[in-house]
């Protein structure tokens, strides 16, 4: 009897729960996808999910990321392997290979101011079409963008970015995808996690439901589709 109850509960956990095997997650990546990658400064990146993406063999990718990691590490692995056709990023200072590929024309790079970049991704996850900012006015960032006047002030229109898949990392995730972070390990992860059709997360601690207090949750499970086992 007790056994039956436990089994029933386990079945329900499978129905509602979002933990998925590495194999299942690898099968979600395809050629030509736009992938949003969380993290900054090469710390606390979703290393295991980037490896899943590598192992999927998917190519002709577009990557949205604050930075480009180090040569041959993280996103740098994908760049070195020639799997990235296009990046939207805010700097390449840590990865000279990214700059080389941009200069040689092997990889297209759109450089964006960090605040405008992350706000565009936020729009993508918040059902907004874009935002108006003064950042970039009078610079090359203005090229090709609409300039909108509000109350006599000029602003650049920065358009929403939305990805096919987001790969991010949380400190804690519960079975239904509620996420909590720690310190600068937060960075762009909570924003990137909202802005994709398929949002996959890896976590340092997989929690029971209700183990993360409601006020600690920074991204509610409604935004999360899969948790890497």
């Amino acid at each position, binding site marked *: 009897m007790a056994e039956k109850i436990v089994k029933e509960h386990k079945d329900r956990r499978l129905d509602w729960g979002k933990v998925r095997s590495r194999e299942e997650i690898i099968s979600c990546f395809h050629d030509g996808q736009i992938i949003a990658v969380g993290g900054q400064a090469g710390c606390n990146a979703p290393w295991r999910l980037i490896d899943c993406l590598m192992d999927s063999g998917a190519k002709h990718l577009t990557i949205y990321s604050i930075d480009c990691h180090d040569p041959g590490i993280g996103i740098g692995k994908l760049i070195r392997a020639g799997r990235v056709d296009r990046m939207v990023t805010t700097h390449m200072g840590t990865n000279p290979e990214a700059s080389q590929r941009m200069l040689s024309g092997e990889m297209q790079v759109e450089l964006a101011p960090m*605040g405008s970049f992350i706000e565009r991704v936020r729009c993508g996850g918040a059902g907004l079409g874009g935002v108006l900012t003064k950042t970039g006015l009078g610079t090359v*960032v203005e090229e090709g963008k609409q300039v909108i006047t509000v109350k006599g002030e000029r602003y650049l229109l920065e358009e929403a970015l939305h990805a096919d898949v987001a790969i991010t990392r949380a400190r804690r995730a519960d079975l239904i995808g509620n996420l909590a972070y720690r310190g600068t390990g*937060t960075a762009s992860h909570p924003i990137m996690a909202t802005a994709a059709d398929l949002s996959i997360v890896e976590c340092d601690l997989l929690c029971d439901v209700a183990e993360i207090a409601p006020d600690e949750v920074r991204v509610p499970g409604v935004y999360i589709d899969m948790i890497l086992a």
Partner: protein
Amino acid sequence: MLDNRHFIARRAAQYFKVGDVVNLGIGIPNLCAEYTEKGIMFETENGLIGVGDAATDIMVTDRFCDAGSNPFVPMPGSSVFDTAYSFAIIRSGRMAATVLGALQVSARGDLANWATPNRRFGMGGAMDLCNGARQVIVAMELTTKDGGKKIVNECSFPLTAERCVDHIVTEQCVIDVTGEGLVLKEIRQGKTPEDIQAQVEPRLIVADDLKAMEE
């Protein structure tokens, strides 16, 4: 005696007031933290106010790193936020100051610090900082290593932002950007205004109360 980089950083840090939240760029600006009084908090744009001392040994963690990947120990009273929130603060006008390096500064305070005609690493957060911080302080050596001018009539390098710089702190002088033009406010002992003028392109206005920089 302080080397040029620390000398510049110490002077730039004097612009901070108790209660200020300040963002420091990579390089010389980052050294300002060593010369700052208590009661000032530093922001790291990846998402924290309250950057403290460099972390060592058991305190090193991926969960507390600045935008240059340096691990630190958060100071008491720190707060954490995501990158979107970080730049909301930066653009809001609530950031008292940012200290940035520069490749070129123009006569009217245009800043170029993220690209040369040949190399573009990316602007990171610099454009937003110049847009939103209440004071933009450039901390740099007065000329390039081979004596080339960095304070110029017009920037030839891609701009970070137009008319954004308030103060320029170098190892030889402090220059304010004003409506009237560049004003020489402080000068290093042993230097004359003519020495400085010879190293910058725009015509400098010498302040009536020109001061000697503290050694």
